[in-house]
């Protein structure tokens, strides 16, 4: 069948793409799962990373430096959400919405217009090897190495004294202060790190696809949550290692589903509805099976 052939041919490209999005899904997992802080900032941190990186590269910056600054911009965005929540006691979801809404204007200012092309510009991939842009196998290799480095770094971090402090803030915020752990510090660290990763993902995507667009974050959070839920269903979340693998495995599976759906004729603009329904079902089904929820935030569970 030509439809299936089209999908099969796309599997490697989709896999390469999903490895970049794995950074964003990790940036969603960290607040939601490790900090019990439903954070929507990545919807703005992802395009922020892309726009900052694109603008700096066009201004003649070294692409590695531009990518690092994009990461830093994401950290700042995450910390802004954390501060709004901590200082003004705003609901974490509302804090995230405020920040990503504000970031839309910031991204527009950073780029000067709603989209910029980088086709003739430098990128980290050109710096490493120009062959990467033309070879899906090389892309998978490069992104795969980056993802493995991220996984190892996070696994190590979470086993450190600092990582344990971050985790206990999410697990038992009543206990943390009596252990001498400052809730503010570790909420800032966690949200900063998470949105730094989302922005890093944005910087990679922009450099690979050769353009940055103001709307590139739209619906990303729901894609990320869908990926996370799929990954947790497949590898579980009983241990830290599994919890860290879930975003990567989940992104890999989710984007193949998307590719399959598009090959089968699903209209791209219907995709968000399908994904939203999917996320609703996966998060809502356990409550239905228990005989109805309590109406409290499910995502904390």
């Amino acid at each position, binding site marked *: 069948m030509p439809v299936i052939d089209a999908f099969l041919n796309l599997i490697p490209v989709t896999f390469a793409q999903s490895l970049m999005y794995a950074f964003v899904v990790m940036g969603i997992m960290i607040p939601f799962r490790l900090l019990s802080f439903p954070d929507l900032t990545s919807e703005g941190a992802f395009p922020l990373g892309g726009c900052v990186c694109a603008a700096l590269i066009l201004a003649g910056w070294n692409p590695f430096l531009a990518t690092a600054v994009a990461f830093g911009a994401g950290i700042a965005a995450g910390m802004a959400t954390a501060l709004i929540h901590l200082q003004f006691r705003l609901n974490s979801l509302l804090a995230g919405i405020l920040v990503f809404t504000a970031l839309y204007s910031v991204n527009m200012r950073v780029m000067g217009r709603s989209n910029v092309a980088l086709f003739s510009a430098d990128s980290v991939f050109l710096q490493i090897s120009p062959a990467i842009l033309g070879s899906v196998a090389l892309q998978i290799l490069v992104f795969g190495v980056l993802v493995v480095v991220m996984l190892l770094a996070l696994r190590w971090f979470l086993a*450190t004294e600092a990582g344990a402090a971050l*985790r206990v803030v999410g697990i038992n915020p*009543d206990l943390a202060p009596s252990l001498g752990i400052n809730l503010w510090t570790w909420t800032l660290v966690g949200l900063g790190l998470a949105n730094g990763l989302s922005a890093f993902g944005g910087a990679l995507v922009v450099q690979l696809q050769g353009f940055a667009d103001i709307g590139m974050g739209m619906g990303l959070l729901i894609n990320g949550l869908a990926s996370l839920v799929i990954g947790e269903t497949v590898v579980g979340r009983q241990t830290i290692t599994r919890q860290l693998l879930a975003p990567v495995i989940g992104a890999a599976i989710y984007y193949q589903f998307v590719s399959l759906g598009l090959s089968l004729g699903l209209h791209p603009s219907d995709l968000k509805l399908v994904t939203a329904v999917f996320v609703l079902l996966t998060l809502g089904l356990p409550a239905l099976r228990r005989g109805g929820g309590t109406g409290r935030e499910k995502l904390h569970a």
Partner: protein
Amino acid sequence: MAAEVIPERPQGGGPPLLAVQGLRKTFGGGLPGARPALDGVDLALMPGDFAVVIGSNGAGKSTLLNSIAGAFAPDAGTITLAGRNITRVPGHRRAGWITRVFQDPMIGTAAAMTIEENLALAERRGQPRRLRLALDRARRDTYRDRLRPLALGLEDRLTTPVALLSGGQRQALSLIMAVMSRPALLLLDEHTAALDPRTAEIVMQATLRVVQDHGLTALMVTHNMRQAIETGNRLVMMDAGRIRLDIGGSEKSALTAADLVEKFRIDTDRMLLGH
């Protein structure tokens, strides 16, 4: 009729370890009709004191413990620890000197983490959290040595998530965690109240042992009359946000439940002394 305030308290040499002076706290932002939870509390603990606080519900016992731990700032008054005014020091910074065991076994431990992870967190209390692995072989050996005297078998279950432990086991672990960092002051907030009598006894015996082993100064809130009479060298009774009675030394050791009721005309219903 309320008992007279008894100013007498045991006076050892040297300055008190903990001095609470004129402590006041009203919840509800001063709305009309809001009664003060603490209405001018003065309390001094000498090094090595084990003071037991009793009182009816709403007497201010937990509020006193919470304000010493730094859960909130008092409206007035000062808290001094080893000569240092800590009234405005946030709770997480006091944790290096003051530790506590909560009434609720669910609060005192991190359920989703293992026994050894919980102990490692407690061990770094009062110190910076470094980018170094939280656990190693030497630490695990130390933790086993700390857990063994409990005789609950926890020393063989270091990698078990705390969620799988019973309430009593969690409370015992919480106690070991509280003394891991050698605090100056140990706060015990009805820490055996949620346990069955036998488990409560085990946790209480463990408490007495660690307090003695580490030479700790302790402040324990209890509703249990027998515990109040048998434990510690000081008895503090609170009512309506004030300390009504503070006795120690031989007077405390000679005290019986009947004495308490008769001598100080305590309303037994309100005091819940029947426990």
